[in-house]
């Protein structure tokens, strides 16, 4: 009987933890991202290699990098597991990747702002596999679901040409 309570109770507690703590943490993170993106609004961000019709200042350009690793919560991995049965869009993992991407981009923008640059060009985003999910380790249960994003860009000091 005790085994049964522990067997059913533990996942239920973890699901509740995901529902209450995970959701509020995610909401707070999104609010923080919105606020920080507002602060970086006057930054010129493109993934072009050069800016037509812009002139560049005396300050030499610099490559900036940013990275973010975001993990999912228990409830979301559970829901994603269910989704795996029926197929379709896995929304719970989508928000995780969006969070990582926005966070990594923001880290570049904030660093550029601190160092006195006002334009970012050739912004590149890529995913990194650090959890080892691309390697068969025969231990799928222990796999951690996470999203690691590496961002890189070149920061310039630019002004609209007259």
């Amino acid at each position, binding site marked *: 009987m005790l085994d049964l309570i522990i067997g059913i109770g533990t996942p239920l507690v973890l699901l509740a933890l995901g529902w209450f703590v995970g959701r509020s943490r995610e909401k707070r*993170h999104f609010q923080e991202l919105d606020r920080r993106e507002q602060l970086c609004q006057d930054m010129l961000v493109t993934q072009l290699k050069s800016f037509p019709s812009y002139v560049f200042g005396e300050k030499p350009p610099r490559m900036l*990098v940013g990275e973010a*690793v975001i993990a999912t919560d228990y409830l979301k991995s559970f829901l994603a597991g269910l989704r795996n049965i029926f197929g379709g869009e896995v929304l719970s993992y989508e928000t995780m990747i969006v969070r990582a991407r926005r966070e990594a981009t923001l880290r570049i923008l904030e660093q550029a702002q601190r160092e006195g640059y006002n334009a970012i060009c050739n912004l590149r985003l890529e995913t990194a596999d650090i959890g080892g*999910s691309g390697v068969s380790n025969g231990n799928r249960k222990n796999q951690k679901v996470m999203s690691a994003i590496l961002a890189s860009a070149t920061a310039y000091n630019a002004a609209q040409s007259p």
Partner: protein
Amino acid sequence: MIVTNTETVAGYRIVEIKGLVQGNTVRAKHAGRDIAASFKNLVGGELKGYTELLTESRRQAVERMLGQAEQLGANAVVNVRFTTSAVTAGAAELYAYGTAVVLQPGRDG
């Protein structure tokens, strides 16, 4: 040393191409980080330990790349790219590569 991930550098002219330079590093996470990550997987959120690991690896790979560029006598590395690969579960490789060049201030062309 000027480092960019664009092929050209605005305001500078490439006068000499020294060749491909590269740097790599394979890093493993220590067990403490793995345990912390398992807890984070319950409530979600940023895995600070892994982010740090990526930052350190990237710095190391770039440093090695710049060391090569210096040896070749370049004063800039352009078109830098990064790739990662998972060697085994628990260790990841970060590879940085770019083209070492000699830059001179002046208009492109």
